[in-house]
C-alpha cells in the first residue's frame, strides 16, 4: 500500500490513488450526507482509530514505514466486528492482495472470504466494489511468492480497490452522494434502494411524445384503469432513480435490465424509451419535477378485471471486468489482482441466487369495461 502514496512534490504528480482517495476522504469528511465519520488504519491488528488529519497525511505520503499488512480475511473480519458495523457504512481501501500464509488456504479462498464477512450473509448487507489502477513506487509484495517474494516498482500500474459495506440503502446513498467520482470498474452485491418515487404520467403534459396514446387509460384510486382490447395502451411513467449508482442511472443500462411484469396480461417497456429528464422539460412541465427518468410502457393485453403491473431492476451479476482483472499468478506485477474472481465469488455467495431486485415498484391496473 505504501507504494501508492509516494511523498510527492511540486514536480511529481500525485498517483491515481492519491487523487481519487484524497478526494474521497475529503468528501467523506465534509459531506452533509454523513452524520458521523471515524477513520481507521488497519496495520496488523484490530483497526486503529486515527484522526482525519493523520489519514490525510498517510494518503499524501507522510508514512515512515510500510505497514506489515493484515491477511485479507482478518482485516475484513476486524472491520465488520466493530460495534455498529452492520448499521453503518464501512469503506475499505486496500490493494486486496490475498496470499494466505498457509498454503492449504489457497484451496478455500471464496469460503474464507465469505466467512470473514459473515455479517454480510446474516444481515444481508450490501457490498459495492470499485477498482482502479494506480502508479506504484516501492516494494510490492505479490500473493504468489515465487520466483520473487517482493519486487521494487517504479511507477508501474497495479490495482487497488474501495469496498463499501453496509445496509443496502445506505451503501446506495454513500455511492451516489459521496463517492461521486468513482472509477469505472464497479461491482455491486445485494444493493437495494428504498422504493423510488414512481408515477404514471397522464395529464398536465405539453410534450406530445409523453402523452398517453392508443386505447383508453386514466388514473383512478392510485392505479390505472385501462382498456387495451382494441388498441394497445402506451403511457409514460416518471421515476426518481437518484439513489442508483451513476453507472446504473444510464438509460442504456436501464433499458437493458429493467423488467416489466404483468400477470394475467401483457406489458413491455418500449424500446429506446428510457431517458433522463432535462431541466428544460422539468421547468416547462412541473408535473415532471419529482423524477429523474421517464420511460414508456405498453400494455397490450389485460385478461383479468384487475392486475398488478410491476417494474423491477434485477440486480446484475458480477460484471465482466472482474474476470479481466483477475490472475492466478501476480508475481510479475500487472493491472490484475491475484484471485480477485475468487474473492468476489465469496462475496457473491453471501446472497441468494438470483440476487434480489435492486428495487420493485408496483402499479394496480383495472380493466375499463
Amino acid at each position: 500500500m505504501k507504494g501508492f502514496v509516494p511523498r510527492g512534490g511540486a514536480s511529481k504528480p500525485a498517483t491515481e490513488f492519491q487523487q481519487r482517495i484524497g478526494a474521497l476522504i475529503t468528501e467523506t469528511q465534509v459531506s452533509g450526507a454523513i452524520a458521523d465519520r471515524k477513520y481507521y488504519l488497519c496495520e496488523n491488528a484490530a483497526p486503529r482509530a486515527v484522526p482525519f488529519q493523520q489519514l490525510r497525511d498517510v494518503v499524501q505520503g507522510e508514512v515512515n514505514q510500510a505497514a506489515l499488512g493484515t491477511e485479507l480475511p482478518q482485516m475484513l473480519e476486524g472491520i465488520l466486528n466493530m460495534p455498529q458495523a452492520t448499521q453503518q457504512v464501512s469503506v475499505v481501501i486496500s490493494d486486496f492482495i490475498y496470499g494466505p500464509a498457509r498454503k492449504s488456504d489457497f484451496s478455500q479462498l471464496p469460503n474464507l472470504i465469505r466467512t470473514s464477512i459473515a455479517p454480510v450473509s446474516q444481515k444481508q448487507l450490501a457490498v459495492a466494489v470499485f477498482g482502479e489502477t494506480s502508479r506504484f513506487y516501492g516494494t510490492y509484495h505479490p500473493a504468489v511468492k515465487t520466483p520473487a517474494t517482493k519486487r521494487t516498482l517504479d511507477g508501474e500500474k497495479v490495482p487497488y480497490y474501495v469496498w463499501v459495506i453496509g445496509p443496502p440503502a445506505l451503501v446506495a446513498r454513500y455511492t451516489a452522494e459521496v463517492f461521486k467520482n468513482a472509477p469505472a470498474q464497479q461491482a455491486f452485491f445485494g444493493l437495494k434502494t428504498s422504493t423510488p418515487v414512481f408515477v404514471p404520467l397522464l395529464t398536465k403534459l405539453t410534450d406530445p411524445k409523453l402523452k398517453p396514446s392508443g386505447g383508453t387509460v386514466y388514473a383512478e384510486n392510485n392505479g390505472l384503469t385501462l382498456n387495451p382490447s382494441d388498441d394497445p395502451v402506451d403511457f409514460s411513467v416518471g421515476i426518481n432513480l437518484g439513489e442508483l449508482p451513476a453507472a446504473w442511472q444510464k438509460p442504456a443500462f436501464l433499458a437493458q435490465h429493467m423488467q416489466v411484469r404483468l400477470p394475467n396480461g401483457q406489458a413491455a417497456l418500449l424500446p429506446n424509451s428510457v431517458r433522463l429528464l432535462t431541466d428544460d422539460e422539468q421547468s416547462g412541465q412541473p408535473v415532471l419535477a419529482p423524477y429523474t427518468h421517464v420511460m414508456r410502457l405498453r400494455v397490450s393485453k389485460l385478461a383479468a378485471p384487475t392486475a398488478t403491473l410491476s417494474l423491477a431492476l434485477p440486480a446484475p451479476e458480477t460484471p465482466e471486468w472482474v474476470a479481466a482483472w483477475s490472475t492466478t499468478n501476480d508475481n510479475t506485477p500487472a493491472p490484475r489482482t491475484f484471485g480477485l474472481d475468487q474473492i468476489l465469488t465469496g462475496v457473491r455467495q453471501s446472497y441468494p441466487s438470483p440476487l434480489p431486485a435492486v428495487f420493485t415498484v408496483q402499479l394496480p391496473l383495472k380493466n375499463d369495461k
Partner: protein
Amino acid sequence: MQTFFTSLYSALISIFQSQRPADFGLYKTDLFSLVGWSTLGVALLLVLAFYYLFNSALRTGMFRTTHWVLTLALAAGLGTLLANTLSKSHGAEGSSYLGYFMVVNLLVAALWFLLFSVLLKRWSTYARTTPFVGPL
C-alpha cells in the same frame, strides 16, 4: 347519484367517442356529478322562474310557446357553459371528450327543462298549457 350521472354522461358521450381521455378519472369522481347537479339546478330554476315568477306572480304576458322555447334555449346554453367552465376550473384538459361533454350537457339541460316543465306547469296561473296541453 354520482353513479347515475357517471352512467348517464359516459353512455351519452360514448355515442360520439368511445375513447376515454387520460383525465377521465377526474370526470368520474368530480365533474359528472358536479356538472350534473348544477345543470339539474339551473333547469329547475329556469322552469320555476318561467311558470311561477313571470307567469304567476307577475303578469308579463310571456306565456307563449316562443317564450318557452327561448327559455329552453337559455337552459341548454347554460348547460354547455357549465360543462365547459366547471370542467376547466377543476383542471380538465381541453380535449375532444370535453367538447362532446358540452354537447351532451346541452341536450341533458334541455331534457331536464322539458321534464320539469311537464311536471310543474299545471300550477302556473297563466302558462299551464305552455308548451302543450296535458299530459298531467
